[in-house]
C-alpha cells in the first residue's frame, strides 16, 4: 500500500534533476564584465562590432574569458576587475572616439561565472533586486493634465486659423485649463463655427450656450483623443528617458510604464544619483533654422575657410558639416507631433510633422520666401546641437503639415520621427519615489538574508531529526528539496529577488515544515491507536492531506492579495511567498511520501517505524 508506481518516482527524479540544474548557476558567483550596447537606435551591435572589440582587446593584450552577443548587446567577461577596467578603456577608445557623440554605450557589469553549457540551457542565477546589488530606483509621475493643456493650447491656435480661413468671425478665443471657449455675436456664426470644428477637429467635442448678450461655444478634447494624447505622452517620455539613460552607461537599465501615468526607472550599479537625476531631468530642444548656401559657407562646410558671420557650423548625423544661420525660425514648442510615414506621390519613406497654428503661419511665410533653399532641423541636448536633417524646400508649405522626405529608408524615417518627438518631454515629470542603495549595503543585505535562511533551516532540521527521528530526517530532506525547487523556480522565472523576498524564503520554509509535522503527528496518532506501521503511514499521509490543502489555500489567498495589491518590497515578498507555498505542496507531501515509500514501502512485515516515541494510553 505504500508504494509509488514507477512514473511517480520518475517525476520526482526529473524534478530533482531540473531543480538542481537551474539552481546550479547560483553557486558560481559573478565575474566582472564589460557590456557594449547601442546608444542610438540607428546603430546595431553585431558581429562587426564584436570583431572590432576583439581586435581592440588583442591590441591591448587582454584575453576575455567569454564573449557573448545576444539581444543587441555584447558581453565580454574577464577574470578580474583590473582586466575589466583596462578592457573598458580599450573598447571605449575603439568604439567611441568622441565622448560627446557616442554611438555605443560601454558599461561595466557583472556576469554569472557559470560555465557555457549552463548558459546555453538558459540557466541563470536569480535576478537580484536593487536592495541586494545596489543602485538607484526612481518612480516618475507624468503630469497628464499638463499634456492635455498643451494639446488644448495648440488646438485653440488651430481653431483660430481654421475659422479665419473659413471667414467665420468670432469675438474671442480663450483657453481655460483644458477647455477652449469661443465667443460669438450671434447664433448663426456660432453654428457655422461649430460645423467647421466638427469637420476639421475630430478630437474635439463642442457644446454651445448663451452667455449674456453673447453666445459661447465650448470645446473639450473628447475622451478617445484624450486617452491617445496621454498614451503618446507617456511613450514619448519613455523614449526620451531611454535616450538620456544611454549616456549614463548603465549595463541593464529598466524603464517601464507603470499604470497609466507612471514610469519606473531602475539603474543597477549606479551610485551617482545626483548625476542620474540631472540627466533624467534634462530638457532637449528642437530648432528649425535656414542653411547658409553662400559660397563662403560652402567652403567653410568643407573646412576650407572661416565660418561666415551670423552662421554656425553643426554636424549632421553622418558626420558631415552644415553651416546654419543663427536666426531661429521655429522651436520644438511649435511642433505638436512627428510621425513616420510615406510620401503620397512616390511612396518614399517620409516623416510627417504637425505644427501648431503659430508655427504653421511662420513656416508658411518662410517657405514661400525660400523655395529652393535648404532648411535645417536641429536638436540641442546638453547645449550641443546636431542637425537631424536638412532638406531642400520645394514649394510653399501651409496648413502646418510638413513632410520631410528624400533618400530616407523606413528605419531612418522612424528614427528621425522618434528623435524629433523624443527631443523634448511631452509632459513634465516629477520624481515621486526614489531609492538609492549603496553597493556595500547590498552585499550586507545578501549576507543577512542568507544567514537568516541558513540558521533557521539548520535549527528546524536539527529539531525535526531529534523529535521525529527517521521521519524527521525525511521531513528535513523534503525541506531541503523545497528550498532547492524554490531557488530553481526563481532562477528559471528570473523573478527579482529582494531582501523581503529572502525573508519570505525563510518564512515559507518555516511554514512548509507544518505539512510534515501534520503528517508525522498523524502517523504517530494512528500508531497510538493501534494501527500497524504500514497502515499508519498510509492513513497518516491520506488524512493529513486534506488539512494541508486547506491550510495552504488560506495562506495562498493572503499571498495572492499581497501580489495583487502590493508594490515594491511587498511584491518581492509575495512572489517568493506564493511560489514557496506551491513548491512546498510538492516537496512536503509528494516527495516526502516518496522517500518513506522507498524506505519502508517494500517491507511487508514491518514491526516498527522510526518516528520518535509513541506513548500508549
Amino acid at each position, binding site marked *: 500500500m505504500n508504494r509509488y508506481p514507477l512514473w511517480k518516482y520518475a517525476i520526482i527524479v526529473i524534478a530533482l534533476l531540473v531543480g538542481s540544474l537551474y539552481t546550479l548557476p547560483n553557486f558560481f558567483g559573478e565575474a566582472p564584465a564589460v557590456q557594449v550596447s547601442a546608444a542610438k537606435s540607428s546603430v546595431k551591435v553585431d558581429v562587426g562590432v564584436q570583431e572590432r572589440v576583439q581586435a581592440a582587446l588583442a591590441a591591448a593584450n587582454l584575453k576575455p574569458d567569454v564573449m557573448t552577443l545576444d539581444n543587441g548587446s555584447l558581453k565580454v567577461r574577464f577574470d578580474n576587475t583590473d582586466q575589466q577596467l583596462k578592457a573598458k578603456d580599450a573598447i571605449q577608445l575603439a568604439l567611441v572616439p568622441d565622448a560627446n557623440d557616442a554611438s555605443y554605450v560601454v558599461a561595466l557589469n557583472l556576469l554569472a561565472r557559470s560555465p557555457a553549457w549552463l548558459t546555453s540551457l538558459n540557466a541563470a542565477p536569480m535576478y537580484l533586486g536593487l536592495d541586494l546589488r545596489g543602485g538607484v530606483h526612481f*518612480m516618475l*509621475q507624468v503630469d497628464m493634465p499638463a499634456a492635455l493643456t498643451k494639446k488644448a493650447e495648440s488646438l485653440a491656435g488651430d481653431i483660430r486659423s481654421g475659422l479665419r480661413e473659413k471667414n467665420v468671425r468670432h469675438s474671442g478665443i480663450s483657453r481655460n485649463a483644458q477647455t477652449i471657449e469661443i465667443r460669438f455675436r450671434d447664433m448663426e456664426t456660432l453654428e457655422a463655427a461649430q460645423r467647421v470644428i466638427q469637420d476639421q477637429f475630430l478630437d474635439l467635442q463642442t457644446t454651445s450656450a448663451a452667455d449674456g448678450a453673447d453666445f459661447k461655444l465650448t470645446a473639450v478634447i473628447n475622451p478617445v483623443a484624450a486617452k491617445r494624447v496621454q498614451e503618446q505622452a507617456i511613450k514619448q517620455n519613455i523614449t526620451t528617458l531611454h535616450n538620456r539613460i544611454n549616456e549614463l552607461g548603465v549595463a541593464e537599465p529598466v524603464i517601464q510604464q507603470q499604470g497609466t501615468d507612471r514610469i519606473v526607472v531602475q539603474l543597477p550599479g549606479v551610485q551617482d*544619483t545626483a548625476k542620474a537625476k540631472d540627466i533624467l531631468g534634462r530638457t532637449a530642444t528642437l530648432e528649425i533654422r535656414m542653411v547658409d548656401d553662400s559660397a563662403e559657407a560652402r567652403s567653410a562646410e568643407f573646412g576650407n575657410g572661416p565660418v561666415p558671420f551670423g552662421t554656425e557650423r553643426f554636424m549632421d548625423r553622418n558626420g558631415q558639416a552644415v553651416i546654419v544661420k543663427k536666426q531661429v525660425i521655429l522651436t520644438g514648442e511649435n511642433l505638436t507631433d512627428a510621425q513616420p510615414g510615406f510620401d503620397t506621390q512616390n511612396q518614399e519613406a517620409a516623416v510627417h510633422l504637425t505644427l501648431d497654428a503659430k508655427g504653421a503661419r511662420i513656416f508658411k511665410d518662410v517657405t514661400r520666401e525660400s523655395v529652393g533653399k535648404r532648411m535645417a532641423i536641429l536638436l540641442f541636448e546638453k547645449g550641443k546641437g546636431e542637425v537631424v536633417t536638412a532638406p531642400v524646400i520645394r514649394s510653399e508649405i501651409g496648413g502646418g503639415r510638413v513632410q520631410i522626405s528624400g533618400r530616407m529608408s523606413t528605419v531612418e524615417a522612424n528614427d528621425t520621427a522618434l528623435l524629433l518627438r523624443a527631443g523634448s518631454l511631452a509632459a513634465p515629470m*516629477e*520624481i*515621486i*519615489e*526614489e*531609492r*538609492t*542603495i*549603496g553597493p*556595500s*549595503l547590498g552585499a*550586507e543585505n545578501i549576507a*543577512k*538574508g542568507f544567514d*537568516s*535562511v541558513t540558521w*533557521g*533551516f539548520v*535549527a*528546524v532540521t536539527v*529539531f*525535526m531529526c531529534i523529535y521525529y527521528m527517521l521521519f524527521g530526517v525525511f521531513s528535513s530532506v523534503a525541506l531541503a528539496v523545497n528550498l532547492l525547487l524554490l531557488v530553481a523556480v526563481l532562477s528559471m522565472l528570473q523573478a527579482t529577488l529582494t*531582501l523581503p523576498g529572502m*525573508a*519570505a524564503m*525563510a*518564512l515559507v520554509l*518555516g511554514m512548509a*515544515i*507544518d505539512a510534515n509535522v*501534520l503528517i508525522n*503527528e498523524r502517523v504517530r*496518532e494512528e500508531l497510538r491507536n493501534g494501527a500497524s506501521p504500514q497502515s499508519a503511514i498510509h492513513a497518516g499521509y491520506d*488524512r493529513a*492531506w*486534506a488539512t494541508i*490543502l*486547506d*491550510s495552504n489555500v*488560506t*495562506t*495562498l*489567498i493572503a*499571498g*495572492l*492579495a*499581497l501580489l*495583487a*495589491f*502590493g508594490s*515594491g*518590497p*511587498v511584491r518581492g*515578498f509575495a512572489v517568493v*511567498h506564493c511560489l514557496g507555498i506551491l513548491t512546498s505542496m510538492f516537496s512536503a507531501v509528494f516527495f516526502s511520501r516518496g522517500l518513506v515509500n522507498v524506505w519502508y514501502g517494500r517491507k511487508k512485515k514491518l514491526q516498527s517505524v522510526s518516528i520518535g*516515541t509513541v*506513548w500508549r494510553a
Partner: protein
Amino acid sequence: MEFFKIKKDIPFMKHAVAFNAISFITFVAAVFFLFSRGLHLSVEFTGGTLMEVSYSQPADLNAVRGQIAKLGFSDVQVQNFGTARDVMIRMPAVKGQSSAQQSEQVLTALKEADAAAQLRRTEFVGPQVGDELAADGLKALAFVVVGIMIYLAMRFEWKFAVAAIIANLHDVVIILGFFAFFQWEFSLPVLAAVLAVLGYSVNESVVIFDRIRENFRRYRKMSTVEIIDNAITSTISRTIITHGCTQLMVLSMLLFGGATLHYFALALTIGICFGIYSSVFVAAAIAMWLGIRREDLIKHHGNKAAHDPEDENSGAVV
C-alpha cells in the same frame, strides 16, 4: 522524544469565557493604543525622505541633529540604525524642493562635519504614493478577509468562517496595537508580515476545524463541547511544534536579519504567539457560541455518512 502525553481531553471550552475575556481585554487595549498613540508610519506611507548614513566611528547623534538643523529643515528625526555607526535620518517632504536637493544638501553638510560620512541608502516617497500605499494595504486586507471567508464557508460552513476571521483579525489588531504601544516603525514589509500572519494563523483554525468535522462524523455520541475539546487536545501537539518551527525561522531572522528585517520578524513573532492563542482558544469558542452542530457539517454528505460511518474522509476529498 515526545513533549505531549495527554491522556484525557483537556476541557478547554469550560474556560472559554475566561479565554475570551483575556482576548477581549488585549483587543480593547490594542485598539486604545492604536487610537491614542497611533502607528509610527514609515516614510513609505507618510511621504518624505529617508537617508541612511554610515560613519567610521560611532556617530554623535546630537551633532548630526545640529548640522541638519542649521540647514533649516524642521521635524527631522535622527536615530541609530542597526549599529552605533549607522545613522538614519527622516525628513518630511518640503514643498517646492525635490528630495534630491534635500538629500544632497544634508549629505554635503554631514560630509563637511565629518569626511568619513558615507551615504548608504536614500529613500524618497512622494505624499501621493503614501496615500495610495495605505489604500492598497487596506484593499489587500479586505481581499484576504473576504477570500478566506468564502473559502472556509465553502469548505466548512459560514459559522466557521466567521469564527476564524474574527479570531484572526483580532490577532492583526493586537499586532498593530503592539506597534502603536512601542512606537515601532510600521513599514511596508511589516504590512506584508501582518497579512502573511493572517493567512498563517487561519491555518491553525483550519486544522482544528478539520478535526472538529472529523470528530462529528466519528464520535456520534459526543456533545459539541466534548468534540471541540477532543479536537483541540489531539491537535495541540502539532500546533505547538509547527509554530515552534516557524518561530525558529523567524528567530533566526530576528537575530541575523539585521535592522531591515527586525520589525518584520518582530511582527511575525507577535503574530505567531497570538495566532496560537486565538485559533486554539478563541476561534473554537466563537464557533461554539455561534452554534455549530453535527448537521451543519455533514448535511451534504449525510447519506454517504449513514451508509459508511467509517469513512471520515468523505468530506475531505477535493
